[in-house]
């Protein structure tokens, strides 16, 4: 009898734990954002977050952009956190489009572009914006997509890495060797890589770039091991594009007194105040400025210049991609390097350099040739 009761209790406990879990993750509570000074004549925006806020990456960046739109442009905005449950996405978009309360519905296209396209066709009067994805031009006249040129951000990272490895900075050695670590071989990761190589070669054509793949996006320990192996070969700065596994590379840099370049989010600021050792080895981070790109879109919408029906690739010039300029960058990177980076950045903005890409209809043989040209 006791056992029965106990098992019933355990089952109940587990079931309630599941419910609690659902409640926290599948939370579709609506949050009204900064509706202080709204102006009816201005367009209104709703951000449908197809994940969770608090990811310290894309969703948080988009949320910051939405807050900025409300604060500085005085538009009515709202954030709806739908969660990862894909079955909820379509009804949410449909409800919002049906109500027609908001002029523009914004969402993260890398996960939900198919759903957005479907709903956009159903509601031709409703405007949709999808970030971090591309669309077929002119097929959806009420949809605008934003993609980011990660190769431009990593171009600057390559410039920085090549300058650091040649410099007399404390942890830089005499070898002109820099490193790149990817989670696994993937077109977007290769796009990071070719930008990085191009940036490094623009500083030193004879630079050697060690390229390794962890073979996992989660395995922090293997990420650390891979970074240690590169550092042992005389590499003194690594750019890991490997999500969680890249955190292991940061650990390796701290342990071996070397440098690292972060990715996706401003990683040194994540460690700031918590682990100064880690924050200090991350010289900068390659970013996609989702928030800024949304503010740019809102401005264009007010002016009526959004290119509906097509996608735009935002790079450094549009402040859609770039590298993080934070207190650690200011503190740890010597001034002469900073000024060279600034020059290179201006060159990119002026369109004076052609940065190779591995995406779209890029010639894969050329991409491989570029990678081979710096192989140790």
């Amino acid at each position, binding site marked *: 009898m006791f*056992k029965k009761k106990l*098992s019933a209790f*355990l089952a109940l406990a587990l079931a309630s734990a599941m419910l609690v*879990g659902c409640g*926290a*993750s599948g939370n579709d509570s609506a949050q009204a954002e900064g509706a202080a000074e709204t102006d009816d004549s201005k367009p209104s925006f709703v951000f449908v977050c197809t994940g*969770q806020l*608090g*990811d*310290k990456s894309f969703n948080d960046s988009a949320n910051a952009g939405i807050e900025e739109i409300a604060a500085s442009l005085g538009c009515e905005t709202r954030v709806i956190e739908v969660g990862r449950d894909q079955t909820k996405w379509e009804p949410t978009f449909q409800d919002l489009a049906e109500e027609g309360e908001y002029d523009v519905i914004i969402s993260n296209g890398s996960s939900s572009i198919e759903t957005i396209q479907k709903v956009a066709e159903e509601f031709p009067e409703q405007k949709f914006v999808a970030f971090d994805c591309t669309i077929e031009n002119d097929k959806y006249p009420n949809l605008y997509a934003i993609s980011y040129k990660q190769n431009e951000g990593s171009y600057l990272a390559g410039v920085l890495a090549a300058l650091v490895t040649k410099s007399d900075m404390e942890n830089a050695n005499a070898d002109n060797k820099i490193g790149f670590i990817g989670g696994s*071989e993937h077109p977007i990761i290769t796009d990071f890589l070719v930008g990085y190589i191009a940036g490094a070669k623009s500083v030193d054509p004879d630079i050697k770039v*060690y*390229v*390794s*793949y962890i*073979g*996992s996006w*989660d*395995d*922090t*320990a*293997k990420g*650390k*091991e*891979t970074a*240690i*192996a*590169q550092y*042992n*070969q005389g590499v003194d700065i690594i750019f890991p594009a490997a*999500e*969680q596994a890249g*955190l*292991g590379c940061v*650990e390796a840099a701290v342990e071996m007194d070397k440098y690292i370049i972060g990715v996706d989010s401003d990683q040194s600021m*994540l*460690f700031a105040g*918590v*682990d100064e050792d*880690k924050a200090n080895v991350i010289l900068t981070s390659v970013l996609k400025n989702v928030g800024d790109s949304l503010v740019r879109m809102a401005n264009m919408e007010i002016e009526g210049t959004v290119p509906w029906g097509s996608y735009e690739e935002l790079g450094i010039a549009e402040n859609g991609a770039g590298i993080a300029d934070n207190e650690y960058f200011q503190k740890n990177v010597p001034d002469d390097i900073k000024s060279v980076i600034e020059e290179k950045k201006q060159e990119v903005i002026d369109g004076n350099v052609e940065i190779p890409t591995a995406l779209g209809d890029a010639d894969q043989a050329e991409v491989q040739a570029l990678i*081979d040209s710096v*192989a*140790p």
Partner: protein
Amino acid sequence: MSILEIIFSSDFFFTSIRLMTPILFAALACMTFSKGGIDPIGTEGIMLLCALAGPVGGYFTGNAVGGVLTAMVVGVLMAFVFGYFTLILDTNPVLAGIALNTFSGGLTIFLTYYLTGNKGSTQSLNSPVVPNIDIPLIENIPVVGAIVSGHSILTYVSLILVVLLTLFFWKTPYGVRIRAVGENEKSAASVGVNIMKYKYISLLIAGCLAGLGGAYMSMSYVSMFSRDMIAGRGWIGMAAESMGFGIPWRITGSVFIFGMADSLAIRLQMLNLPTQLISCIPYVVTIIAISIYSWQRSKVKKKKAE
């Protein structure tokens, strides 16, 4: 730099030992489960929860010992939960194992977010780490010193445990009874052995071992928990256990082969060989090793038959 230079360097062997430690803990845990006749399929999930428990426990107690102990306690708790479901409620062990593994995958993310506000890792929790130690005298021996000395305390603990567990399972009444229970429950019961008691003892030991493995990952290998960080090491431990026929020194040998294969794969990438080819080295080595072992075993069986 040639392949031979890579292999015959002390750095290569040092890395192999570092890579094999978590797998060795996993394999020893699997061995202890199997000795007590319990399916070791939940090891991966138990280790993952322990990997989170370590830094969290360490953060709240303020020292590494507290963290490791917390991980071990969580390991034992999870092993008991698994045992309760499979032994008392008679759940299918494979289903219970899958449930446990998916459960810990989700629970760890939930707890990480709850505790740190970050879904990926506990990087904002400045948790203590288990230190690496240099062994006096041995560290001064050329080559050997560079390979053997300077590892994490937990690495030495794992190697000591190999000896201790061998003695326990073959030389003590408790150990022999656990093996008897695992090999044939009914005959063990017929001579008056309390089956459940010995099953729970093996769950207790296995839980501690998985806890140590998890703690090693997040408190020594790297200094934080990150999502899904065990990344299949529990499963490889299971493979190593069967490759080693459940005999501790043989298990250690197979785990070392896995460690070397991983270490080699990481180093060969520097030679600019195709990555796809290199990433399959650990798996190819596994297949070759298993083939050799089973070939040997079939030979032994044939001899016995004659």
